[in-house]
Structure formats: structure tokens, C-alpha cells
């Protein structure tokens, strides 16, 4: 056996050893809706209770079937059972293990003892309704308004499950949620704290440490990340596309820290300029485009050109300078001219 074959075998064994299974493969629809049953010479039709009802002397004993449930029909019951139910199926998906009483629900006239009213996926087709009902099914009858207002979820959910649940049915985290999640957090921090910690917020918003490669989570391809792929090339374009967005998280001096290191900042002696010739000189020339660029995204200018009174912008735009007033029409400020920022330009006029 070659080394490569041995390596492949070792990998295969490793994967097999680690396999814990995912969800059931049991053909519910075939058993419940497609078997010929109930007729002369045929076996009685199956219902959910045929396999899932446990100790009938106790109430609400609905359980995962064991191999004994297969014996009456399948001679190779052990094999059938093993093929249809994966080992991990006994563990319900997070949040599905709610505190719930089946018996009173099944007796309700609207349900009429039919499990499929909620577990429609049991007789559905692949890609159809889920096997376990979404929370919206509960909310179609139970309003739970008081519990939502108070952020009390443990009446139904296990507290340990809450850490991994998304409140998809009543507080949607899609439909532009990322745009407004800060707003929601301001309005109802206690609601967020029901599931999240401050450290959860920090996993994206932490400015006390640089973002690490691991935080990019390359394996999480469905996670929305602003800086994915070739961000280095795009970062200036993105800043231009939505001016001001960068300063949501980044301090303006952070840009210059990197630009200095790369020699593309005016703060570094001998650096080559990134602006075209006559960018900020030659009044009236077409190439003098710095004013338009500044109007569009002054935050980008500040990334490099903000050294207070030492800013080279001040040199021309101070009172009496050749650059004229930089203030836009209607500019107002409550700050006195004597303060540090104003006096940088207005100092001579005081």
C-alpha cells in the first residue's frame, strides 16, 4: 500500500470515527400516507401513535421509537432501524425540546388528534414543511404578548436552549436587520440581553483589539462580513460608495497609520503622493478636483489630512487665504471662534 493510500485510509477512518450523524432518515411519508393498509388482508394503517406513543399509563409520553416498533412488519428490523434512524436523532434540534403537553393539544377540536397539523413535514416531501413546527405555529394560537414584552422565554424554552436560538418568528433578524440592530439594541437592551451578552456585540464591535484572521471565519460563508475577499483593493471604493460609513467603527487616524507604513501618506517624508498632479493647485483647472472630492467624502480627507492647525488644508482655506471659505452654504456652529478648531483659520480675524 502506498503512502498516499494509507493517508487516504487514515483520513477515511478518522471521518468515520468522528461521524455522529445529523438527522433522521426515517421515511415518514411512506409509512403514514403511502402504505396500502386497512383493507381486507392488509395490516392496520399506521398513525403517529403507532410508533411514538410510549408508556400509555402515563400522560404525554411521546418518545423516539425503538427497534421494537419495527418488528411487527420488518423481519430485518434491526437493519431497517439502523438504516433509518441515525444515532444522534435522539437529540432534538436546539429549541425544539420545549415544555409542551401533547395530550391537551391533540384533544382540541381544531387539531382532532392529528399530529400532522403541526408536524406537517412528517408526511411532506423533501424541501417542504419542516418535521418540527416553527414557533409561528405556536403563535398562531398563543399570542404570548406579555412574555415578549417582559423578555420571558423560559415558560416554554429551556434556558440552556436560548443561547442557540434565533427569535425568527416574532423578532426577525433578517429583512435589513443589520441596518437597524443598533437601533433595536438602544430601544430595548434588556431584550437583547435575554440571549446575548455584551461580549456577543464585541465579537464584531470590539475596537480594543485588531481583527484577527480567525475572526473572519472563512468557514462561515453565509455570514455577512464587510471586509471579505480583496478588501485592500476595494476599501477606497467602498469608502467612496458610502461616505462616513467607515467612521462608524474606525477612527480616522487608523487610516494614516497604515498609509504611513506603506509610504502612501503625506505624513511620511519622501512618500509619493497618491493624488494626481495639480490636485489642489491651479485654481480653475479641471485637474483641481480636490474640492469636489472633499465635498463628497470629507471623512476620507480627514483620514490623512487632519492635524488640527497644522493641516495643509488650513494653509489655503484660512481666513484671507487663497482657497476661500470651505464651509458649505448654510453652515452654522454654536462654537466660539476662540476654540481650537475655529481659531486655526479664524485666529487672525479675532
Amino acid at each position, binding site marked *: 500500500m502506498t503512502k498516499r493510500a494509507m493517508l487516504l485510509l487514515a483520513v477515511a477512518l478518522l471521518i468515520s470515527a468522528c461521524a455522529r450523524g445529523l438527522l433522521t432518515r426515517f421515511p415518514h411519508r411512506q409509512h403514514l400516507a403511502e402504505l396500502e393498509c386497512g383493507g381486507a388482508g392488509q395490516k392496520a394503517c399506521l398513525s403517529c401513535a403507532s410508533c411514538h406513543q410510549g408508556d400509555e399509563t402515563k400522560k404525554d409520553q411521546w418518545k423516539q421509537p425503538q427497534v421494537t416498533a419495527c418488528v411487527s412488519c420488518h423481519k430485518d428490523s434491526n437493519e431497517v432501524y439502523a438504516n433509518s434512524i441515525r444515532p444522534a436523532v435522539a437529540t432534538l434540534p436546539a429549541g425544539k425540546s420545549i415544555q409542551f403537553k401533547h395530550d391537551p393539544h391533540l384533544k382540541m377540536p381544531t387539531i382532532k388528534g392529528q399530529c400532522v397539523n403541526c408536524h406537517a413535514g412528517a408526511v411532506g416531501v423533501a424541501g417542504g414543511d419542516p418535521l418540527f413546527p416553527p414557533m409561528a405555529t405556536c403563535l398562531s394560537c398563543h399570542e404570548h404578548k406579555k412574555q415578549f414584552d417582559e423578555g420571558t422565554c423560559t415558560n416554554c424554552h429551556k434556558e440552556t436552549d436560548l443561547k442557540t436560538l434565533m427569535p425568527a418568528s416574532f423578532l426577525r433578524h433578517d429583512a435589513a436587520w443589520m441596518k437597524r440592530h443598533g437601533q433595536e439594541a438602544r430601544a430595548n437592551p434588556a431584550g437583547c440581553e435575554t*440571549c446575548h451578552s455584551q461580549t456577543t456585540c464585541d465579537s464584531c464591535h470590539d475596537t480594543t483589539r485588531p481583527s484577527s484572521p480567525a475572526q473572519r471565519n472563512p468557514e462561515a460563508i453565509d455570514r455577512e462580513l464587510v471586509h471579505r475577499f*480583496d478588501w485592500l483593493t476595494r476599501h477606497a471604493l467602498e469608502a467612496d460608495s458610502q461616505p462616513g460609513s467607515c467612521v462608524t467603527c474606525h477612527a480616522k487616524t487608523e487610516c494614516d497609520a497604515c498609509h504611513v507604513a506603506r509610504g502612501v501618506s503625506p505624513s511620511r517624508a519622501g512618500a509619493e503622493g497618491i493624488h494626481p498632479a495639480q490636485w489642489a493647485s491651479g485654481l480653475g483647472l479641471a485637474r483641481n478636483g480636490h474640492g469636489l472630492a472633499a465635498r463628497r467624502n470629507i471623512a476620507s480627507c480627514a483620514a490623512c489630512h487632519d492635524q488640527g492647525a497644522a493641516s495643509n488644508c488650513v494653509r489655503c482655506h484660512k481666513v484671507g487665504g487663497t482657497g476661500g471659505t470651505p464651509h458649505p452654504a448654510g453652515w452654522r456652529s454654536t462654537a466660539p471662534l476662540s476654540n481650537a478648531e475655529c481659531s486655526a483659520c479664524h485666529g487672525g480675524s479675532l
Partner: protein
Amino acid sequence: MPSKGAVVACLMSASALADVPTWVDARATLQAQAFQQALLPGGPGVVAPMPLALPFTTTGFLRFGGMDLPGAPDTVSGEVAAWGRVGPRDGLLGDGDVTTAWAQYRSGPWRVKLGRQVTWPGSARYVRFDGVSGGATFGHFDLDAYAGFVALPRWTLPRGAWVLGSIGEALEDPRLREAQNRAGQFLVGARAGVRYGQTIRGSLAFHEQHDDIGVAYRVVSADVGSQPVDWMGLGARAAFDVNSLGFSEARVWADVTGWRFATASVDYSYQSPSLLLPQTSILAAFGGASWHELGAELTVQLPWRLTLTGRGAGQVYDGDRPGGRGLARAKWIPDVDERWLVQAEVARVMMGTQGYTQGRLGARYRATSTITGALDSSLYVYDAPIHGVSSSLTGIASCEWAITPWLRTMLSTTLMSTPYAAFEVQGLGRLVVELEPNSTGGRP
């Protein structure tokens, strides 16, 4: 590092003492990484050498609640989180910080929180500070106030950082980092709100923040939200810069969730970038143009476990060129057990004479419940060449193995061809140790 059993024992003993069970949520991670980028662009025509980085990072997180004080059961909760790192590039000093450290006393309508915490004030959107916050809730009314010293972001200071290509990674050299000066950097703010369940809520807030020069932000903001019917959510907010007597940003949105298989959202936003700068920035007075954006998003859940998302926004800038962004995404999970995730998207961004078109294709496969592989690729085509190159191509392959619920490892490789490097390779190895995989302490 304490064992998982020790944490559980601690939890159980604490629970036994309290009238209402005290709960503890703890998480610690250890990450050993090997990371190298082959090429790094420097000045024009210059390639900066990039040595292999081997940072070793550890994080700790502890959250608790339901703790008793004498005569006041179930009133104290708290949270502590910190990180630390050593590695060849960091020299012997290493690095680290406490990100969260607060304790809260809550009794009846009153609450007081002391320590390192965050707040979400007006236009400065996420501020960490060391101080005190307090509040009260009476019926439908909330009143909160806070004050403290700003915990400065590390990024505030020039630090000789190297940013690695595609990811915004920054491994800083502490020898080049300046000492942080927190003198004069304080904040104070308050918020009054009213809330009638999901039907309607609103608030008015004030936030003032100083830096080492003077007043950086003095903002009054207001927000309202309503869910008039089950299938619709409405909201709006605005921030008014008191210094400049102008709106720094405003937003209005409507979400429609009435259809079982579709959600839709419409969003209008306005921003004045100069007013989002700290007012101690001299360029804030230069008053850049404001811009407006009108956008919409529609997500449709089709049969066959296929989800389609369309998103678009148009932008108008005062006295300048219009812009726009659009995205169409298809996400397909073929099997009920969610072994496969296949994702494809096309995006287009326009900003005057420049812009780009993106195509992306990715897939994730859970070979077992413990082993997951992912491939992700993206092609960007730029409207105008950058450094003479009109496109960039990125491919990422990764494989994660959850050896045990508390030990995970991942290997990842990135291949790139960009305007800055004709060919570039990055490698990432990650090892994570967790005490509590279901912790709310955030993912690494």
C-alpha cells in the same frame, strides 16, 4: 485553565446557595494561529516583506446572574471578558485588554451598572467606557443615564500596523505604539424612552463626548418604532449635532413580514459625513456634502430549500454624482439535514466613474457532525483599472474539525490575484479550546 467540570461544580455550588438559582456562563478560548501573506504592497512599485506571524491568543468570558445580596435576592449580575496575545511579532511584551467588566444591581424598577461597559449614543454609535450607568423603569417609561471615561479604541493611535491584504488583519508592533492618553476623554449622556409593548416605542437621548482637545460629539437623537400590525414593522431615528445645528444622520424603514415565505424591507437613510467626524476634527467644519440613500430588500423562500435575496439602493449626493448598490443572492440547502450549503451572488456597485461588479460562488459541506469543509470564491471586475489591473480573484478553502465539543481546529488557505499582487497565498491554522460551546460569549 480551569476544567469544564470545575466550572460546572462552581455553578452548582452557587446555585445551591441562592434562593433563585445563580447561573454562570463561562467561556475560554485558546487560539494558536500561523498566518503568512506572501506579498504585501508598499509604496508604488515596492513589495514589503511579510514575516510569518504566529500569534497565540487567549480569550476569557464569564457572565453570571441571579446572585443574591443580603436581603436582596436575585439582584446582582455581571460580565467579564478579556483577551491576551503573545507572538513573535509582538516581542516579549505581548498584548491584551479587558473588553468588559461590569456588575449590575437591579431591584424593582431600579438598576445600576458599574464598570467597563458600552453604550449606543447619538451619532457616536458604539462607545466603550469605564464608569457608571443607571436607570429606572416605571410602567411604560424608561429613564437611563451614564457617565465615565472613554475606553479608547486601539485604532485611535498610529501604531505601525501592517494590514494584510484581503482581510483587514492588523498585527501591531507594540514597540511602535504610543501610550494611550485618556486625559479629558470622558462622556455623559441620558435617554428617556416610552414603550407600549411591540405597538409603539420611542425615545429621546442626549450624548456628549470629549476628547483630548474638546467637545467631540454633542448630539441629541430621537427614535421611534412601531409594529402596528403583526406583519409590519416601522421605525425611524434621527441624530442632531448640537454644535453644528445640523442633522448628522437620519433613517426611516419599514419591514413587511406578512408572507410566510417572503420578507421585504424598505429603507431611507441620510448622512452628513462631516458631522459623523468628531467635532474636534478641523475638517468637520469643512462640511462635506450629505447623501441620501433609498434601498429595498426582498427575501423569498422557495421550495427545494432555496432562498433568494435581492437588495438594491440608490444614492444621491448633494451636488455630485449619483451612486448605487445592488445584490442578488441565491442560497440553497439541498437536504433537510443541512449538510450542503451552496451560495451564489452577483453584486454591482456604482459610484460615478468608478464601480465594480462582483460574482461569488461558495459551498459548505458538513461531512460529519464534526467535520466541515468550505470553498468560497469571488471575482471583482472594476469599471476603471486599478494600478493597471481590472479585476481581482480570490479563492478560499477551509476545513474545520470539531474534535470534541470543546476543541476545534481549522485550516484555511487563500489564493488571490489582485491589482496589488499578481499571485498571493495566505495560510491560516487555528486551534480553539472552549469551555462552553453554547456560551453567549461570542464566536472567536
